[in-house]
């Protein structure tokens, strides 16, 4: 019995960690944009949904390899992000934060209104050719799609960490994020780096859309995963790539533990609510998250 209980706890943690990294995958796009441009994307879920629709649409064409669908999703998302940055967000530079939040909420409404008019309301299926043989780690089993999600998240983590620490462009982008005027004075083309940041977020959203879309099926429900972003980014720190990953892991495990050990006692779903409680506590004691950059401003 004791062994059972232990292996159950182990499975809970493993499943929490893997789903946590799936959340990170969505949160990364959010963090990238915030880090470089200080803009906040409340439509991250809709971005993921759009990518899912594009990928499913291309994959539905007879004889089209899945790679083409992924490439199409990436291409569309990059273009879309560019356009968004130019048309909507650039005019909003320097305006209060609520303006950007509402603009992206408005964008979300548009994106949710489009699919029923264009491709219809039905659920599109999108499946990656990975089979459905579960992946076994000791007593825990993981669906293969989550394993793919974990790998992609970790790859992004590695790539972006390298990019920001070592590459010239990455350092420039950090400079832009740190202080736009000084960066400009140093001869950095700020606008180009803004666009680059959005393009990178587009790539992340595209892969998030493909992976979450093949897990959930593609329709407007897919946008709901966007709600998962907020506790993740607040816990990890809004402008930290590592934070997005660690935050995702924490949220995933907390959700898992809450559902496994707390729900039986309160008779309700504490899963969605536990990360937010944790987040509030974090906001009170360490408002800039575990890895966030502290902006000192005392009132």
């Amino acid at each position: 019995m004791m062994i059972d209980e232990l292996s159950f706890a182990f499975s809970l943690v493993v499943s929490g960690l893997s789903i946590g990294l799936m959340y990170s995958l969505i949160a990364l796009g959010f963090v990238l944009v915030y880090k470089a441009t200080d803009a906040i994307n409340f439509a991250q879920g809709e971005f993921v949904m759009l990518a899912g629709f594009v990928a499913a649409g291309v994959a539905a064409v007879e004889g089209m390899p899945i790679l083409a669908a992924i490439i199409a999703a990436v291409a569309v998302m990059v273009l879309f992000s560019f356009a968004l940055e130019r048309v909507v967000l650039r005019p909003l530079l320097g305006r209060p934060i609520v303006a950007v939040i509402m603009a992206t909420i408005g964008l979300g409404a548009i994106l949710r209104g489009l699919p029923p008019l264009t491709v219809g309301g039905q659920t599109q299926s999108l499946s990656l050719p990975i089979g459905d043989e579960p992946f076994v780690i000791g007593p825990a089993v993981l669906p293969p799609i989550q394993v793919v999600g974990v790998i992609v998240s970790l790859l992004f983590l590695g790539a972006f960490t390298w990019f920001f620490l070592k590459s010239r462009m990455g350092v420039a982008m950090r400079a832009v994020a740190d202080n736009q005027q000084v960066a400009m004075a140093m001869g950095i083309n700020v606008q180009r780096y803004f666009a680059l940041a959005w393009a990178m977020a587009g790539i992340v959203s595209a892969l998030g859309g493909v992976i979450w879309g093949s897990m959930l099926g593609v329709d407007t429900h897919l946008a709901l995963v966007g709600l998962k972003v907020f506790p993740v980014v607040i816990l990890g720190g809004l402008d930290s790539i590592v934070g997005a990953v660690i935050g995702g892991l924490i949220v995933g495990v907390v959700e898992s533990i809450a559902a496994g050990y707390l729900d039986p006692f309160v008779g309700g779903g504490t899963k969605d609510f536990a990360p937010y409680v944790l987040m509030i506590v974090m906001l009170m004691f360490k408002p800039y998250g575990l890895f966030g950059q502290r902006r000192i401003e005392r009132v």
Partner: protein
Amino acid sequence: MSASHKCWLYAASVAAAVGIGAGAAAAQQKELVFGLHCDRTGATQTVGTFLCPGYHDYIALLNSKGGIEGYKVRVIEIDNEYKVPPAMEAHERFKMEGAVLTGLYGTPQTAALAKKLDEDKVLGTSPGFGTAAAADGQRYPYVFPIAASYWSQGTAGVAFAKERLGGSLKGKKIAFLFYDNPAGKEPLPILEDLAKSEGFELRTFAVPAPGVEMGAQVLDITARYRPDFVIAHLFGRAPSVAVKELKGKGYPLSKLVSFVWGASEADVKAAGGFGAAEGYNVMQFAGVGTDYQVIKDINAMYKAQGKPEPKEQEISVYYNRGVMVAALHAEAVRNAIKTKGGAMPTGEEVRKGMEAITNFTLGGLVPPMKITPQDHEGGGWVQIWTVKGGKFAKAGDWKQPYRDVIKKHLDMEAKK
């Protein structure tokens, strides 16, 4: 032609125009208005975008055949985005347009409009949602669930488990996986009651909104509780996630039965397709598939107009439910017109017409319900369908188990 002639012609044409207008007005008197609440853009849009077209198509078919007893039907549909205030606006609009009945949409909207329907004496139907207590026609005279409530679905789930587990539930374990909102919690008292009388152990597992992930709950079910049967009552994307997770953790789908809102082709598709979901059992309150005369008639009507079959039939589960609601609406109004000898019925008379519906099955698409002034649920009929060989197949006939339990709970509600 002289000026006076011109003038005369002009006057004649005006007169003709007025005459046509008057004719149109006269024709309009032979028109019935049905109000339909829908949600095509809110939280439940994946249901509404299929259900409501089914409703419209049936009415169009009816109109193409001359309408109801000579009356044409005009449907006004209003999208309430699953919000309550727009539903109130919609109700007032229907009232102004002289709607003889309305089709409600959504549990909170039904709760908010119940009183209004009563005051305005216009009936509203709430198939598969709203409160189970509304089956009591004495307490809610103008609300008609006209389909199995969540309570009846609960009893159907237990009866199905009993059947599958060899006729007895003594000492068995059943898991109830539910969406953590009022609608999700509604069947709990019924299930607890049945657990006592049938002697099975019941444990509940809540899935909070939006339910896109439930690894931990399913793990709890499969690794710790290890039930003999799982009854799932989920909404939105959650049903397909549950199917995927349970299957991934090695739980046999043949021991899983879902309530009516996790029962569509879309859920199966999102769960990995009909091949992957083989064995998954679902409850239905209307028939599934396109193999019904009325669906064929609808397609024939569109074909005659040179149009393709409605693409919404792809999700026949919801589409057919829309057809069923429309058909029951039409039947109620037909009853009312007949008793009135062909005159335009009032809302109250339509209510009586609805309460007179018995054995109206539309070729098997609609259960053999009997709506009475006491029982607005029409008997709480449920049919279980199973995913088998790439499609939904019937796993039994229409059933209404444990009516005594439902009756007992309705009486308890009424005393409150």
